[in-house]
């Protein structure tokens, strides 16, 4: 552990987060609303924190960044970002306690989209913009952002990149990490721009188009409206947002290749085909059940609401257009399962990820065939490449750890006195970075009523989910803190 070096990187990160508050500040200045002071004060406090950390770490050398430091830096960066990001909510009084503010900020950065604010529209636009901006920053990753814009982190940056980018085998599109980060953000900005334009074309104003774009592209789920996207009741908005949620849930390396002219990139990617298959299958069955059950009268409506909810949950966005708690239980359970599936590796979404599930399924298949043919040599292949023993081992232990955390979390929430459905789905929805669950945290409700301790635990689960468990879990291993 290089403590000074960790302080130096944290100083950078908290500086970036504080500076990004200039955008919501601009909205509040424009509106002349009451959140100008909280933002100014938050920026100042963030600046002081950043400066203090810089003084501690100014002499450290980025080249010393080791494996351990990478994990610690990334986890702590996200925690510090959430602490700084929570200040505006707390200072403005949007939430009653700091635990609530921290929960809201962590939910924002981890692109969970679980909220503790009941009357969202009562808040000024600065606060609402900040909620969605945290999504957008956290979606592609604050570390990846700093790698893209701060070239001097250099070689050590790779440790950070690996600790933050989702997926079992982080992919590099170019030899240099900084370039990769820059391209990823480029694609992200490009897609975000496209969605904003499409939403404005449908009649949203700039503010709503931007906030919804941030919520979609980051697979976050915060909306500046009380009833989320459902408030518009517009098929056009639903389909545009469905499309972009789906794209945000795909591997961004594929988007990059596609934009660079390799149009077969999506088709050739096995994980993307699997992801598309799952989405299509679930959409069709959900729409069918909804029709049979009589929830919707027309095929168009059943498909529109079915597809929106399926994509929203599998990509771990968490926007809602319908109260799915009124839907048949088959669809509810399917959605709960999709919370575990999650998006693709290298996307902005959370969950276990399609790639890991594919590896697991093929590993099981390989085991089966080696039972039938004891002398057979069976290699697990994904995307035409052999997934070696170490990859299978890491995926399996990821799955086990995920389930263990889910179980322990649910047990804890139940111990706090919540009912089973609420405990279970609140943990699944935060660990998977989705947002809305079922029961007490259902689509038409929020997390305001969860006890304080519960909020801290769920905040931690969100962080673990976003950074794919190990990055955060290693913080609890004493070995990490030794020199």
């Amino acid at each position, binding site marked *: 552990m290089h403590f000074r070096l960790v302080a130096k990187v944290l100083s950078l990160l908290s500086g970036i987060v504080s500076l990004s508050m200039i955008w919501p500040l601009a909205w509040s200045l424009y509106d002349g609303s009451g959140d100008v002071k909280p933002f100014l004060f938050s920026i100042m406090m963030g600046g002081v924190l950043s400066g203090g950390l810089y003084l501690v770490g100014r002499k450290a050398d980025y080249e010393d960044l080791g494996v351990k430091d990478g994990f610690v830096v990334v986890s702590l960066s996200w925690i510090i970002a959430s602490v700084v990001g929570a200040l505006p909510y707390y200072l403005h009084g949007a939430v009653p306690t700091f635990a609530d503010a921290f929960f809201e900020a962590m939910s924002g950065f981890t692109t969970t989209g679980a909220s503790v604010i009941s009357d969202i529209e009562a808040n000024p636009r600065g606060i609402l913009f900040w909620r969605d901006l945290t999504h957008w920053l956290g979606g592609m990753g604050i570390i990846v952002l700093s790698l893209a814009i701060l070239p001097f982190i*250099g*070689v050590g*940056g*790779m440790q950070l990149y690996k600790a933050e980018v989702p997926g079992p085998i982080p992919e*590099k599109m*170019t*030899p*240099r*990490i900084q*370039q990769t980060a820059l391209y990823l953000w480029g694609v992200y900005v490009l897609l975000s721009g496209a969605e904003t334009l499409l939403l404005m074309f449908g009649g949203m104003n700039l503010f709503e188009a931007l906030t919804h774009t941030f919520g979609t592209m980051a697979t976050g789920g915060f909306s500046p409206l009380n009833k989320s996207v459902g408030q518009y009741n517009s098929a056009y908005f639903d389909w545009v947002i469905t499309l972009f949620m789906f794209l945000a849930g795909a591997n961004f390396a594929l988007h990059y290749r596609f934009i660079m002219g390799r149009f077969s990139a999506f088709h050739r990617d096995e994980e993307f085909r699997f992801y598309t298959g799952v989405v299509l299958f679930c959409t069709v069955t959900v729409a069918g059940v909804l029709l049979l059950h009589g929830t919707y009268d027309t095929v168009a409506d059943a498909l529109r609401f079915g597809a929106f909810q399926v994509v929203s949950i599998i990509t771990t966005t968490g926007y809602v257009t319908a109260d799915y708690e009124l839907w048949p239980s088959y669809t509810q359970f399917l959605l709960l399962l999709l919370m575990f599936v999650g998006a693709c590796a290298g996307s902005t979404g959370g969950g276990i990820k399609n790639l890991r599930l594919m590896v697991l399924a093929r590993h099981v298949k390989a085991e089966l065939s080696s039972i039938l043919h004891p002398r057979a040599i069976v290699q697990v292949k994904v995307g035409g490449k052999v997934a*070696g023993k170490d990859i299978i081992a890491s995926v399996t232990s990821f799955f086990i750890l995920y389930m263990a955390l889910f179980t322990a979390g649910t047990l804890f929430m139940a111990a706090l006195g919540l009912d089973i459905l609420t405990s279970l789905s609140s943990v699944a929805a935060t660990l998977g970075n989705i947002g809305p669950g079922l029961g007490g945290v259902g689509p038409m409700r929020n997390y305001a009523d969860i006890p304080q301790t519960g909020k801290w635990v769920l905040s931690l689960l969100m962080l673990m989910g976003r950074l794919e468990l190990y990055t955060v879990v290693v913080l609890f291993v004493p070995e990490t803190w030794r020199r």
Partner: protein
Amino acid sequence: MKIVVVGGGEVGYSVAETLSEEGHDVTVVEEDEERAARVDNELDVITVKGNGARPQVLEEAGIVPGCDVDILVACTDHDEVNILACWIAKRAGVKRVISRARGLEFTDSPTWAKDLGIDVMNSPERSVAREILELLFVNSAVHTAELLDGRSGIYAFRVAQNSSLVGVALKELRTLYPHFIAIIVYIERNGTGYIPYGDMRIEAGDLCYIVTSREQAWKMEEIYQMKKSRPLKRVIIIGGGKLGFQVAWKLENQFRNLDIRLIDHNREKCERIAAELKRTLVLCGDGADENLLRQEGIEEADGLVCATESDETNLLFSVIGKALGARKTIAVVRRKIYMKLDNYMSVDSIVNPNSALASVILRYARYPTGSGVLSIIEKIDAEMLEVAIPERSPAVGRTIMSLGLPKGILVALIVRRGEVFVPVGATVLQAGDKVIVFATSDLMPEAVEYLGVN
């Protein structure tokens, strides 16, 4: 630049590491899973797993017809793979290809590389064998590297306590020893290196890197070490591999009356070597066998070269040899980390074929159009470059002093119409001069610019 490195072993790793740190886009092709994982984890490069001689694997690394890859470096252990990788790359339009050649036949004559379409082909064993010979010949030199096709070289000498040089300022050297064509380009003192300046005084224990002509090198040791050089009489070589054989063969050819003894534990290998070498006494036995070493006169040996396959064995044999009375011991190692051990163990010189190759590749990748061969001594963070001053260079017709070279850049030698001399500030540069520049690594690009090369 876009660079593809085929092979991620000791050489490939260090080449890829340096090039990537210099800001190039590097892709490493490596077949071995563990080596590939090491490269992938530790370097900011893309790793492609697979055999570098297969078009499909190279395609994955970006070698496709019409690609914009600038350099391909093939440095696996297999000549076949290296040559094929270079050939495929050249056909795909890669501008420059560099290959390592293990088989010395390929570098025996320059036509092989040309016929194969390879821009640079290098056998580190050959240059290292030459280095070992120099170290044996100039007995008290700690390191050496050749310059100007072997006509001159860089030699590192330790200043002895009783040396007449102690306390002398560098600028006085020329008047004290007017007949010497030599210049001190680098001084290592207590672990810190300096590019020297005129007022700097020499202290006992300094390690001085001197550029001088080959004929005068052995005279240097008389003033640095205050002892008479004596001609080589007996050299013992342990290890009959490629390098050991090459050293023995070269020694046979260069020193008529030298007593050469080569020890290897493999009987078949000994028989083969004995058939190929003329005068060398080939002995089958263990290099750690004290009786054998004593019998073969280790006390009288002027040099002991340890060149077995194992780095550790070579280092230990050198220490043993030194303890038994060999005058100079040289250990061959392939791992970079062992290069620093000569400060801790009683071994006189450590040579490393891998870093020798890596530095050749790096120099070529860095200064592709730089005329002449580059040379480097791995231990110090400074480089030496041979350049010819072109007609249109702004430096033509000017004195070295008026160029205003920054501190850290040194014009060490000039070759003009076959004559080698050490320049002074008032020396006027002429077009066609072959100049040897010495500079710290970060200043070398600037030095090249000052001289108007490229």
